[in-house]
């Protein structure tokens, strides 16, 4: 009996080692993909900026930093992102409280609808805001070209991130903590400052860092709403490359941007570890209550009204104006999308862009799903406690990095790397879906990992004791459970690809525009009909995105969502 023990032990060891090999094998495709299509382009940018002629040379760096124009751009990018983040958190905290603490009619619907602005293509966000605060807009105030337009757009775009991230944390806090504080003599604002805030602080920090990164790398919104005076690093990189062909300056700017992004991510990781307070989490249905007092009813109503005005107005105006042609109500702008006007040889009917976008999005989704699934499986392993290893954490982090990197950097990097052997894809149609897959992959992984983790390891063990091989366990236990998360991830990847603008702007071929590119082109041409076409195309893109999001919400597993 005693002698059999070491034998059993060594068998267990070898099987767990084999398991690690499986995981490394699973992690290989996504990591390889990111190495070629993310790391290589980024490193190429680095070298282009710091080692232009095969020698390390930091003079371009110095020049850029010394140039007052560039310093202005850098400074504007920083303060604009901070202002956007602060405003967004201030406006969204009441919304988070609304969803965390109250029960009201239409709550679930509103919670889902909040996601619409976040997944809307930035180009559509910008165009719909032009309809309200642009020249000839609904409000009669023209903020186009001012920093206010940018800030409003960033709040519009990121509101849901804060409300959903902070709201879900807040809803798990036992209301009796707040009630105890009240009974101990704390007036309402002190209850918030002394009890609620310390407990939601780390999730506010998480949401803030996402908002900051999105605002810092904001491209479409700033390009369309910022005019010629307000430029972020992202816009400057694009102009330096596409307009002035100053690749070295663009490279240095991209490098600066990358530096800030990495700094933010590192700071965020540290602060999370230091600050987060563990507490007994309650289920959200346990902590919500209907409005009891007139004040609470007023709070709920004014909050919903704010959300309706902030999101409803621009989107409604967009749709309405897409039908308001100079000749009266009708489909004039939509019909114009099918015309190949303008006389330019490279000009194709804008309607073609719909087909292009759908094609690119399908390919990008397929790539992101296959790679994401491999990655998620490698990260989670068999889901038991000891499967959380340095390997899984490392893989997880590596796959998140593209999330913090600007799309323009990816597009620009592609341009540098893939126009010469060994990989000459310059004129290939593959570049765009690949770039989209790079952008979408982190989202896919983030949706799949929690779903895989949510599978009780005992289910696997039960299946195994019933004689199922690892492959059978995977097919019979994991695939069905993960199916829903997979559908949600597919929808998300599809929406990300449909709306992607920054990288596409670099890679697009004149005869194969995507929908956001077609919208941007129409905006760039003078005349009411062109603006109308932008409105019409934006409406179509918005509808496509909303349909995809509605499909996601049908499939979304209840417990799995980070934002």
């Amino acid at each position: 009996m005693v002698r059999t023990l070491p034998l059993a032990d060594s068998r267990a060891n070898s099987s767990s080692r084999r398991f690690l090999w499986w995981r490394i094998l699973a992690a290989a495709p996504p990591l390889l993909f990111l190495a070629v299509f993310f790391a290589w382009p980024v490193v190429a940018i680095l070298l282009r900026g710091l080692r232009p002629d095969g020698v390390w040379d930091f003079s371009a760096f110095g020049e850029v930093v010394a140039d007052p124009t560039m310093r202005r751009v850098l400074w504007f990018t920083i303060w604009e992102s901070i202002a956007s983040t602060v405003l967004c958190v201030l406006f969204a905290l009441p919304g988070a409280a609304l969803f965390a603490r109250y029960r009201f009619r239409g709550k679930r619907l509103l919670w889902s609808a909040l996601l619409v602005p976040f997944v809307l293509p930035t180009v559509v966000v910008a165009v719909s805001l032009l309809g309200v605060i642009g020249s000839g807009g609904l409000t009669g105030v023209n903020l186009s070209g001012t920093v206010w337009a940018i800030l409003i757009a960033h709040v519009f775009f990121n509101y849901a991130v804060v409300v959903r991230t902070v709201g879900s944390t807040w809803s798990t806090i036992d209301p009796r903590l707040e009630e105890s504080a009240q009974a101990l003599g704390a007036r309402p604002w002190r209850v918030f400052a002394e009890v609620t805030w310390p407990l939601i602080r780390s999730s506010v920090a998480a949401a803030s860092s996402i908002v900051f990164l999105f605002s810092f790398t904001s491209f479409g919104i700033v390009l369309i709403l910022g005019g010629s005076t307000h430029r972020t690093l992202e816009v400057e990189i694009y102009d330096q490359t596409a307009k002035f062909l100053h690749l070295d300056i663009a490279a240095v700017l991209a490098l600066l941007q990358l530096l800030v992004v990495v700094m933010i991510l590192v700071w965020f990781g540290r602060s999370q570890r230091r600050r987060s307070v563990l507490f007994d989490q309650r289920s959200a249905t346990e902590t919500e209550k209907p409005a009891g007092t007139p004040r609470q009813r007023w709070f709920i109503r004014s909050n919903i009204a704010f959300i309706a005005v902030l999101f409803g107005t621009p989107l409604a105006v967009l749709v309405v104006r897409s039908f308001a042609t100079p000749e009266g109500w009708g489909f004039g702008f939509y019909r114009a999308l099918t015309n190949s006007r303008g006389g330019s040889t490279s000009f194709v009917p804008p309607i073609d862009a719909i087909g292009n976008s759908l094609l690119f999005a399908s390919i990008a989704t397929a790539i992101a799903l296959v790679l994401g699934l491999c990655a998620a499986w490698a990260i989670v392993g068999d889901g038991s406690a000891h499967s959380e290893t340095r390997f899984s954490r490392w893989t997880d982090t590596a796959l998140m990095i593209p999330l913090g990197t600007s799309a323009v950097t990816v597009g620009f990097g592609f341009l540098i790397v893939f126009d010469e052997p060994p990989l000459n894809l310059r004129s290939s149609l593959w570049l765009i879906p690949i770039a989209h897959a790079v952008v979408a992959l982190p989202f896919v992984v983030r949706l799949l990992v929690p779903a895989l983790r949510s599978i009780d390891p005992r289910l696997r063990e039960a299946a195994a004791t019933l004689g199922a091989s690892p492959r059978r366990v995977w097919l019979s236990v994991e695939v069905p459970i993960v199916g829903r998360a997979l559908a949600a991830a597919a929808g998300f990847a599809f929406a990300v690809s449909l709306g992607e603008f920054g990288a596409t702007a670099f890679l697009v071929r004149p005869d194969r525009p995507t929908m956001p590119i077609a919208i941007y082109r129409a905006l760039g041409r003078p005349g009411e009909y062109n603006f109308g076409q932008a409105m019409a195309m934006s409406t179509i893109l918005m509808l496509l995105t909303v349909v995809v999001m509605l499909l996601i919400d049908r499939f979304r597993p209840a417990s799995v969502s980070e934002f």
Partner: protein
Amino acid sequence: MSNSYLVLNHVSARHGRNDDETLHDISLDVTAGEVIGVLGSSGSGKTTLLRVIAGLHVASEGSVVLDGIDITTTPTHLRGVGLMFQEHALFPHLTVSDNVAFGLRMAKVSNPDRSIRVAEVLELVGLAGFGSRDVSSLSGGERQRVALARTLAPSPRLLLLDEPMGSLDRILRDRLVSELRELIVDLGLTALYVTHDRSEAFALADRIAVLDEGAVVQIDTPAALDACPTTEHVARLLGHR
């Protein structure tokens, strides 16, 4: 009625998901220094009753008078009542002494006085020296004591206890109940003690109010209650056959 301390006049309130924890026309008269046990099964409205007295829930009708002053519409933080929950609701981001000091800070007690009082109260509940501990490191019984210390520190005018022993095991519970009784009597506090457990109510209370479907069906001393329960429901709650 000359020494009435807490008076509830015909209080009604709606609460719960389907208004199931509703109060119907509750009247109660508590003398200073008295400990009232509120006994009832779950859903009988006993928690709602405490919440109305604490001001966490608004009564739809009736009034609450504490020490001669109508506090029906007074916000919770100005009522000066001590409230203790079943799961203790300790602030997870604060240490033991910061938890206990919370009410004192809200009352703007100066720093040195605060430390003295915190040490004093911790000693009172038998947790001297626990001040710097993290609340997550405490056992169930210790958490319960910290919650009690936190409630007692600002010297509340009234003590409201909502199944404070609910999450503890039987043996610990019996010991703590007798300790708690001693403490309340020593400090001369007026208290309402909500429970579904007859033995706890009998061990603690001077009088017991039996709640059923949001109404007080009987209120009397434990002995009298035990001797002649007026309804079948009361008898069942007391363990009679």
